[in-house]
């Protein structure tokens, strides 16, 4: 590698970029400074990108500029246009792109077949494997959340097939590393083909509430792949940024899996809801109620806790819900929002939507803060949430969600469930809460129902 002034400047820029990334992430971890955090990290990216053009021996500058304009342009437009409710799948998509880029770096290096040390080759192969799995896996996750792929595909021996695919990719990868005359192009193609298929077959069977965990896992994996390819290219900015994301993402993934009382192995290797035996019988009937009655019930309550779920996101009801909450507050009702860590399709998904509607974060509580309060709550209003309030998680050992900490909405004096229809939720599990004596069902689209409730409260 050249040791001229240019390469010193490039290295110095990468050092600055690494500093900006870490400072940016640090600032993003507090609500007060979060907004500035992304700007710091963004500045780091601009510095590193511009500096890279001055790397010694850089050719194909025009191609590089065209590729950046193309990829960046498409991402800019889609990122600006996507609705807040669809954020999770966009993160999955952009993350997959990063994994694909890491795999592409590995592919170029391996096809070049230049002499490298065994360690460098091994890391190139490992990063390529992880990147390719993250790429195709994230695309499947995107397809699932976007409803392009409607069902989870499972078949007998699925884990065996995945294991076989993993072993085959590792073996082919090892042969690439150990080949005396450098990697054979045919084997390189086979290697990436296997890795891409593995990402698909690993992700297809995963569904339901496990999706956020998987997206987070792929985010961490892409970070690792980037760090490994950074080692191959002798690029400190990639090593540092990739590794920071790799470990931060792993921790975040663990926090999420823990919030659902599932181990990571469980998420990956046992299809959601498939391993459990027959579920406990749910008896009783669902009692419908109309908006006017619910309006009266809430207007004269002392304390109302609102539990939002993915249904609120789909119905775009967050603005109406906050309007309703403000009306109740004006009447002297204490209104709190209770958010389960995995409500929605990502941790904090509901917080983002409520923040969009302008709900201040001091009326928003998470599961551990508010669970004791349901006992003295008059009305628990559940909007599009299902599994996170299913009491079976506390009582029914045969339920797939048994052991998951839930919001104890069933303990409040009255439970109102706003729901589009009678069917089971995203995960397909029956919810005993809907059949309790103190529960009433308010059927309809979340936004329309919230508007009706606002009218009902105003009319009093």
């Amino acid at each position: 590698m050249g040791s001229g002034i240019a390469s010193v400047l490039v290295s110095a820029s990468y050092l600055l970029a690494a500093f900006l990334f870490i400072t940016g992430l640090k600032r993003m971890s507090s609500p007060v400074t979060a907004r500035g955090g992304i700007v710091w990290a963004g500045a780091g990216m601009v510095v590193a990108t511009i500096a890279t053009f001055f790397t010694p021996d850089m050719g194909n500058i025009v191609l590089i500029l065209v590729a950046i304009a193309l990829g960046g342009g498409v991402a800019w437009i889609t990122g600006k246009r996507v609705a807040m409710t669809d954020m999770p799948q966009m993160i999955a998509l952009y993350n997959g792109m990063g994994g694909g880029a890491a795999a592409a770096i590995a592919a170029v290096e391996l096809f070049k077949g230049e002499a490298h040390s065994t360690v460098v080759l091994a890391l190139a192969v490992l990063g390529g494997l992880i990147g390719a799995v993250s790429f195709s896996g994230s695309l499947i996750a995107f397809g699932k959340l976007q409803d392009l792929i409607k069902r989870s595909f499972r078949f007998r021996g699925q884990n065996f097939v995945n294991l076989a695919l993993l072993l085959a990719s590792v073996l082919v990868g090892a042969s690439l590393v150990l080949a005396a005359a450098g990697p054979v192009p045919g084997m390189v193609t086979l290697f990436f083909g296997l890795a891409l298929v593995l990402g698909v077959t690993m992700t297809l069977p995963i569904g339901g509430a496990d999706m956020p965990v998987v997206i987070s896992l792929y985010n961490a994996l892409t970070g690792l792949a980037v760090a490994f390819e950074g080692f191959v290219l002798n690029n400190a900015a990639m090593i540092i940024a990739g590794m920071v994301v790799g470990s931060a993402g792993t921790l975040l993934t663990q926090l999420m899996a823990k919030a659902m009382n599932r181990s990571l192995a469980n998420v990956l290797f046992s299809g959601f809801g498939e391993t459990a035996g027959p579920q406990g019988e749910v008896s009783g009937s669902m009692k419908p109620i109309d908006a006017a009655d619910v309006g009266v019930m809430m207007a004269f309550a002392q304390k109302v806790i609102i539990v939002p779920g993915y249904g609120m996101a789909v119905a775009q009801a967050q603005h109406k819900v906050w309007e309703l909450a403000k009306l109740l507050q004006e009447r002297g009702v204490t209104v709190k929002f209770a958010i389960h860590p995995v409500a929605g399709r990502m941790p904090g998904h509901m917080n983002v939507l409520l923040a969009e509607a302008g709900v201040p974060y001091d009326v928003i509580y998470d599961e551990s803060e508010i669970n004791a309060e349901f006992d003295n709550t008059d009305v628990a209003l559940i909007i599009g949430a299902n599994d996170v309030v299913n009491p079976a998680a506390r009582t029914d050992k045969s339920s797939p969600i048994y052991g998951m900490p839930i919001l104890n909405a069933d303990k409040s004096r009255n439970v109102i469930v706003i729901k589009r229809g009678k069917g089971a939720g995203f995960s397909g599990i029956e919810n005993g809460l809907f059949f309790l004596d103190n529960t009433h069902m308010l059927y309809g689209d979340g936004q329309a129902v919230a508007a009706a409730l606002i009218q009902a409260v105003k009319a009093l």
Partner: protein
Amino acid sequence: MIDGFIALYIFMLAAFTGYEVIGRVPTILHTPLMSGSNFVHGIVLVGAMVALGRADTTLELVIGFLGVALGAGNAVGGYVVTERMLEMFKSSKPAGGPAAGKKH
């Protein structure tokens, strides 16, 4: 430059840094932070640029081009969605009205 054990030291210290940075994060910032870290690994863009910058054969050029386009998508898309999410955390007082993102 970076080789052998020095690289391992960097790996290790960076791993601890990531762990520490995210360890004290409140739940409400989990999604923006996952999105933010998704943006940060968009640094893969510079690696893809180097790979394309040194590509010779058509195959290498095609793969390198794809890599740069994907890396740029990761960086730009990650920035845009993170920025949009964090914009909403501007203040704790009710802002009201539909936020950005309703653009046609």
